[in-house]
């Protein structure tokens, strides 16, 4: 076989061999080559040092409440799922209209204290936050859809190789 390093052909065999992931037939070919090629033999020896060093590195264990916290988050997004389904086609064009309506309602409430609207401002605050939350959820879903459909645009440009 040609030298994987000098010819750049099948050079991944060297990585696979060092990791113990090369099949038997290719292992035999590479070992025969390495008997006569100190460059490849040295590559494998050095790569094995790296491989063994990486093998020593363990990650910390997960928190025992990992699932509980996740399910709590899922429970929080669950109630909004029907909103997504029903309002998805309508939501985006409606956002500016809804904002304008909220402003008008707020103005009416300020100028007509006996109009029957709730004086509880915290209630109004909650209602005004909901569209933003739904908007964010839709943005997330949009990102995932784009991630699935046009991968190059995202991970391909995030970092230089």
């Amino acid at each position, binding site marked *: 076989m040609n030298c994987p390093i000098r010819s750049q052909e099948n050079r991944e065999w060297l990585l696979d061999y060092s990791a113990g992931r090369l099949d038997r037939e290719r292992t035999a070919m590479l070992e025969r080559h390495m008997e006569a090629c100190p460059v490849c033999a040295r590559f494998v020896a050095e790569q094995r040092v790296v491989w063994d060093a990486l093998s020593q590195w363990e990650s*910390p264990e997960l928190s025992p409440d990992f699932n509980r916290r996740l399910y709590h988050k899922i429970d929080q997004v669950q109630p909004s799922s029907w909103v997504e389904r029903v309002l998805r086609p309508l939501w985006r064009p409606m956002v500016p209209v809804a904002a304008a309506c909220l402003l008008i309602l707020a103005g009416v409430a300020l100028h007509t204290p006996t109009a029957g609207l709730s004086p509880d401002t915290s209630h109004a605050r909650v209602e005004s936050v909901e569209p933003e939350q739904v908007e964010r959820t839709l943005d997330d879903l949009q990102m995932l859809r784009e991630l699935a459909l046009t*991968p190059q645009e995202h991970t391909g440009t995030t970092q230089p190789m």
Partner: protein
Amino acid sequence: MPQWVNEDMGATSLAFDCDAELMLRVRDGDGASFALLLDKYRVSVAHFLYRMVQDQAVAEELAQEVFLRVYKSRESYEPSAKFTTWLYRIATHLALNWLRDGKNERGQERLDDVAEDGPVREVADRTPTVEHQMVRQVKLEEVRKAVAALPDKQRAAVLMHKYEEMDYSQIAKVLSCSESAVKSLLFRAYETLRVRLAHMA
């Protein structure tokens, strides 16, 4: 446990052996299948993210976000790729974004600093002495720093190759690049590591 998770999922868990099939069941509203996928992959995803960002609290938050996004996108799921490819694409996307935003905010690489969550854990040693343990800790710290110093995409490729045992084709799909690009990433990354870790022979 939320209502949508079937509490007697243990009885049905052995009936599935295909992740994509499980995910299709999640799409159809089967919470037990989601629980199975979570149990199967939460540790490997969290470990991958930990080695990417090298901060345990951040890694757990990102891992939670990965599974939250899997759940939230269940209705649009199509098994066009291996489930794990899709899963690690989400994880890698989140990690790379976090790293990019972190660098923008802090203006410099932080991974190469001292770890924020204490000493690096190592594989259990059968003959621990204090001195031996200290030497190993120093070596592990060097490994951690060497990996942290790799460019983000090279690091992602190495972690998927080494710890997730993915082949070049799957890593290419996760990173949305060609197989030859993955091989180049890996060769450059391992070359850097061979230089930095040569003294560990």
